[in-house]
């Protein structure tokens, strides 16, 4: 089956590596001497703080993209359908969350950051879960 707009299979592992690499950078941001994203917007476009924030966020976003949209080992029409279903659920969840946040919170900056990774992470979890269930139904029937 021909699939368009999907990354090769090995990109998934590159994606996981990028996400894992991003975690310590984000966790120890303050002890590395960088401010939180909210404070960086005033510091200028090419200040260290802003460049650090943009590069870590980009590493995470690209990593999530690679994981979410790389091919499976055997890519077929059922897998594509599961991925699209998961994408639909992710968009639903994202818009529900976005609406709730916009109603109850005025913290636009964090809403934006949340919006950056919620759909992709939910897509990945939902898709992996669907694949897991598919595989377990296979081993049940032998």
């Amino acid at each position, binding site marked *: *089956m021909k699939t368009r707009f999907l990354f090769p299979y090995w990109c998934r592992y590159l994606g996981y590596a990028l996400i894992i690499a991003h975690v310590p950078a984000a966790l120890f941001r303050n002890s590395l001497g960088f401010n939180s994203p909210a404070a960086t917007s005033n510091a200028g476009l090419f200040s260290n703080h802003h460049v650090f924030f943009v590069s870590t966020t980009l590493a995470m976003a690209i990593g999530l993209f690679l994981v979410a949209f790389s091919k*499976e080992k*055997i890519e*077929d*029409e*059922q*897998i594509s*359908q599961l991925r699209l279903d998961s994408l639909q659920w992710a968009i639903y969840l994202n818009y529900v969350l976005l609406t709730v946040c916009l109603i109850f919170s005025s913290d636009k900056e964090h809403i934006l950051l949340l919006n950056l990774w919620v759909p992709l992470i939910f897509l990945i979890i939902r898709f992996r879960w669907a694949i897991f269930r*598919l*595989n377990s*139904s*296979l081993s049940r*029937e032998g």
Partner: protein
Amino acid sequence: MKNNIRVERAIKNITQGELAEQVGVSRQTINAIESNKYVPSTVLALKISRVFGKPLEDIFTLEDND
């Protein structure tokens, strides 16, 4: 939609994996089609019927609620 892929496989004596390989999908997909959890596309259905050398409607049949 119903299908009798499992029966046809038994007649031809091939496994799910072998059928999957011949039509270019994963074994999970063949399993899901056999247990009526997934409806294949027309292209895939035609490929499967070609493997068994039978017309499409001998393998896939519509149900009343389709």
